[in-house]
């Protein structure tokens, strides 16, 4: 942005302010929406490419042209064919990325609410040069959605009682057993949140999905982080392989080599994946993806294998038998000197250094992608 002369910038900003918001959306609300993009995109000062390209100076940019980022050929072709990013093209793309740019590797299902789309565009546009941003802005009359209402700021120091969004039931009616607090949860509310699945199958929804269906979903929504075969891109988690390595010096713990229960795979994908877009998969999708993860781990071998609520319990995980109870309290180093720490001449000879810290310059300015990676990361 420093390329832009300061005076011109000030003028453009002034113009922007005078002419009111150039975007249908609200950038502040858009910042919240952008959290869903953050897993893959950075924007703002010092933004770097991540899973997806950085989004500074996006407005006016030809699709697929951020320097140093490796796009899919689909995105490059779209750019070569004249696709440039402005409020309109972005709205279309963010509504249905794969619908608009067939074959894009952006594993993102799209934003469902039009207001979210407008808001996130308004937010991203604040990191683009104002003049172009303004040219690209849709005229107020082609706003197809209402801007999110902005809440008036309260300046009063006196606290007003805040009305809860849902009226609390009066005491005694439906409240708890002792203090009559809270209210009875409805069946619909419980169904909305209670999605956990246990090893004995309690909590599994109706539905099914095949390995072949799972492969399509995985390629589109998971492989950008977990790799085409679950082998992982960069430091994202590995999902497949590693069987037989648990006693090795460098064990590889994956669904196939380590996880004791299949229910955990279903439960976790449904609650937390794809990363940054949780709870977006249908129950059938999750069956298909679970089947595909089994396939990537050679636990099922047929592409037409169908996983369903009915046959879920028949799958045995290879490492199921290798989990044991916590017996740390019985370990020899604790039993040997319990209540009785040694005070003098505890070790013979003088101390000699056998190992120095491996990474000595850990400072906050250690750059991403610095390859001084140590032998063990955080799990």
């Amino acid at each position, binding site marked *: 942005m420093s390329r832009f002369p300061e005076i011109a910038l000030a003028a453009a900003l002034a113009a922007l302010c005078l002419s009111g918001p150039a975007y249908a959306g609200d950038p502040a609300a858009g910042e919240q929406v952008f959290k869903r993009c953050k897993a893959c995109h950075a924007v703002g000062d010092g933004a770097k490419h991540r899973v997806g390209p950085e989004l500074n100076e996006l407005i006016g940019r030809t699709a697929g042209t951020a320097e140093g980022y490796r796009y899919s050929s689909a995105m490059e072709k779209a750019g070569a064919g004249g696709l440039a990013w402005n409020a309109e093209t972005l709205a279309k793309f963010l509504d249905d990325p794969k619908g608009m740019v067939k074959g894009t590797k952006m594993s993102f299902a799209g934003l469902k609410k039009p207001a979210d789309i407008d808001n996130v565009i308004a937010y991203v546009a604040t990191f683009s040069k104002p003049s172009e941003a303004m040219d690209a802005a849709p005229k107020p009359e082609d706003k197809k959605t209402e801007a999110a209402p902005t809440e008036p700021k309260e300046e009063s120091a006196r606290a007003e009682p805040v009305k809860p969004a849902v009226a609390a039931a009066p005491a005694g009616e439906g409240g708890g057993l002792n203090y009559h607090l809270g209210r009875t949860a409805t069946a619909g509310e419980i169904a909305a949140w209670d999605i956990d699945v246990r090893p004995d199958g309690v909590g599994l929804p109706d539905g099914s999905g095949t390995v072949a269906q799972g492969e399509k979903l995985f390629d589109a929504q998971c492989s950008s982080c977990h790799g085409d075969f679950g082998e992982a891109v960069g430091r994202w988690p590995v999902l497949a392989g590693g069987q037989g390595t648990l006693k090795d010096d460098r064990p590889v*713990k994956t669904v196939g080599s380590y996880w004791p229960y299949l229910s955990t795979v279903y439960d976790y994908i449904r609650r937390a994946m794809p990363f940054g877009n949780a709870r977006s998969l249908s129950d059938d999708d999750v069956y298909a993806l679970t089947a595909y993860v089994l396939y990537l781990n050679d636990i099922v071998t047929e592409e037409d294998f169908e996983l369903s609520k009915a046959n879920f319990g028949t799958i045995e995980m290879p490492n199921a038998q290798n989990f044991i109870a916590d017996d740390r309290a019985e370990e020899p180093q604790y039993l040997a000197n319990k209540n009785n720490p040694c005070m003098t001449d505890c070790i013979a000879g003088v101390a000699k250094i056998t190992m120095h810290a491996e990474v000595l310059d850990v400072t906050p300015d250690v750059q991403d992608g610095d390859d001084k990676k140590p032998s063990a990361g955080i*799990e």
Partner: protein
Amino acid sequence: MVERSGNGQSRRGFLKAGLAGGAALAGSLAAGRVLAADDPAITQIQDWNRYSGDGVDAHPYGMPSPFEKDAVRRNVAWLTADPVSSVNFTPLHKLDGIITPNGLCFERHHGGAAVVDPAKHRLMINGLVEKPLVFTMDDLRRFPRVNKIYFLECAANSGMEWRGSQLNGCQFTHGMVHCVMYTGVLLKDILAEAGVKPAGKWVLAEGADSAAMTRSIPMEKALDDCMVAFAMNGEALRVEQGYPVRLVVPGFEGNMWVKWLRRLEVGDEPWEQREETSKYTDLLANGKARHFTWAMDVKSVITNPSPQAPITHGKGRLVLTGLAWSGNGTVARVDISTDGGRNWKPARIDGPSLPMALHRFYYEMDWDGSEMFLQSRAMDEKGFVQPTKQQLRAVRGANSIYHNNGIQTWYVDTNGAAENVEIS
């Protein structure tokens, strides 16, 4: 084996940077010496002595002195693929006492720090209960309240140090721990409000963040001392610590202290969630893995001196200090060795000694300027003595990752610089 980075130069740079300021000071201000010239800090009138400072309200929420800008959380970028599922570390070497300031409590999120609107936050309790209930934040504040000081330690604290010394600073080796006073209500009161059915043996706690973090808590613990907390150190929880409400599971690994707590489900079996199978299980050398390793073992670390906080005043009087804690209760004693564990002397625990809270210890000594291999070793009220890292590796192998409570060694050279080492 550990691969060495072989970056000797940056190492020297690091040590020098730590010492430069201190060495000069030590030369001119060493105790008892007569100065050649008057100290300008006294003879010159300082700006703050002449000009008025800011009025009230310059900072409606007060911040530390600008001279304390290094007392910040730090992360280590290469540890994880993404800062949204990552960790940063408490600057233990910058702190004293037993309470961690709210803004310095380490962060560990699995789907980023959720910013939850308390007016739209609900806590549901369902499963094997007489009456499934939904509470608003206002409802929660109408239960009897308790105030408790507890440490929270991530099970992976010191996990990078399993195979050998890696990171140079107690912030990085031990900084996934903090200790604050929680205000909230007892989990058992909330469970009783819904009425736990006799078959209910487990509680699943679930967060409202994008990881929908879940852990199975045994009913015995849930009914013992767990809390549902909405304040820390007197103010609302910080966003990074689960605002508006989190679970407190005293003495147990941090991952169980579900943040942004939105649901409690009572069941007759554990749920075997990802965070209690794929993660937070401890792989042993024989390929078996320990499961449900909840309690945090007895542990301690010397925070000063340490690699980020070298001795800058030269020989003579030295205050050595650090922290000790145990998931089993209080810390009964802490001993200090300056010769790498050959001989030990008791340290002095100062400040409150509370169960499952950090304990502050001091060891005052005269330093003769020779090399030291500093170690601290805690023993808790149940008699468990902190082991060496060699002992842990001998029993558990090199890939256990979690629950590393091994004794930490800082090598202090004759200049006062400290380094993270392992010794024979």
